[in-house]
């Protein structure tokens, strides 16, 4: 069974459906699946719910799906960098479910790990806890958060092999490993696609079992906040 596809569009073939729940890796514009996002834009899939820490910027990242009004709902921790997002949100055209960043990451991990729910102290006593089950353990109160079980995961890695094993680079790892685990189908785009055996088995971050399809992408890797010190 071959996992390697020739393009993002081909890799998404037969997978995209209106109304589906997509989990996406990336933090800000760092480590985002640029090619797969562009291909979903081109495919015009509608009414998506997207679980992703952020929503990109107006013309890059998940922002391009917002431009095409393909997104019905975002599950995110921070969406501050996107004017189009705010327009649609204020107009009532876009729903947002805010999750604390760690809760969002853990919900994705839980979904991938067959954990239906978990108790966390994060958000106790805040709006986030409204309507959620509260439970005390050793005298401290926790709230129940549920796993995210996505229809599709889209992730970006640095190196991948033809068996779907992935290695991420620096902080471009972020949500990618957990997003990869929580989708019924996971598609990965990589900067370098290598033959099986090219990756060190102890250094693989995402074992190939989680990755159904893989493509070599071309990555702009746009920087959101170029900040420097004097040389």
């Amino acid at each position, binding site marked *: 069974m071959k996992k390697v596809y020739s393009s993002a569009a081909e890799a998404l073939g037969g997978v995209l459906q209106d109304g589906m729940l997509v989990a996406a890796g990336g933090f800000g514009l760092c*480590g985002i699946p640029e090619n797969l996002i562009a291909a979903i834009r081109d495919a015009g899939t509608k009414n998506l719910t997207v679980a992703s820490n952020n929503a990109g910027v107006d013309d890059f990242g998940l922002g391009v799906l917002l431009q095409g009004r393909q997104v019905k709902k975002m599950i995110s921790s921070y969406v501050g960098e996107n004017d189009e997002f705010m327009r649609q949100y204020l107009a009532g055209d876009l729903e947002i479910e805010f999750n604390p960043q760690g809760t969002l990451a853990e919900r994705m991990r839980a979904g991938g790990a067959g954990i239906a729910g978990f108790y966390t102290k994060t*958000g106790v006593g805040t709006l986030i806890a409204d309507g959620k089950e509260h439970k005390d353990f050793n005298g401290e109160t926790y709230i129940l958060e549920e796993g995210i079980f996505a229809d599709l995961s889209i992730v970006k890695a640095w190196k991948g092999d033809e068996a779907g094993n992935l290695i991420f680079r*620096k902080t471009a790892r972020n949500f990618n490993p957990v997003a990869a685990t929580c989708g019924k189908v996971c598609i990965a785009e990589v900067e370098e696609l290598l033959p099986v055996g090219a990756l060190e088995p102890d250094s693989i971050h995402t074992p190939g079992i989680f990755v159904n399809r893989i493509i070599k992408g071309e990555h702009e890797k746009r920087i959101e906040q170029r900040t420097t010190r004097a040389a």
Partner: protein
Amino acid sequence: MAGWDRNQMAARAAQELEDGTYVNLGIGIPTLVSNYIPEGVDVTLQSENGMLGMGPFPTDDEIDADLINAGKQTITEMDRTSYFSSADSFAMIRGGHIALSILGAMEVSEQGDLANWMIPGKLVKGMGGAMDLVAGVRRVVVIMDHTNKKGESKLLKQCSLPLTGSKVVDRVISNLGVFDIVDGGIKVVEMADGVSLDDVKAATEAALVS
């Protein structure tokens, strides 16, 4: 009344750093704290997007799109640096492995409640990792101006804004001084140069206890 400017607040906050510990610095003034780490104190900075051992901003030559902090700014790595996923990062935070979180606030109550993510009726951008940090990190220190632009106290009996965390703040460092959340209210630990107790009283809605 003189009081501290943002760099002086950051410098004072840097005195909170203990040698050999792991620390998370929020966006804004807290980021400045890393400029004032005392001699002989070795702390490792965590960036909640998946890094321990955050180095300084890069030179132009060093910029790497794959290496950013939680404020999405380009940064550098150090000898000791390790990278990990967001799930592992917040496992670290939620599990109490970070000794200290220093972050900004809109309001703090005398119970240690913190509000810093949402103003009803205004655009809400999200809480990012703040709720996880205040719930999980062992000690939470807030740096903020003592009063808002209208001159109203930000150290309150009750927060008026939606909370980021309930009973989570240990200490507040403001332009007027250093204040601990203790049983019954706020305790003055230290006053900034030129600030009197009357200045503090006038600027503080929360109960002051001695």
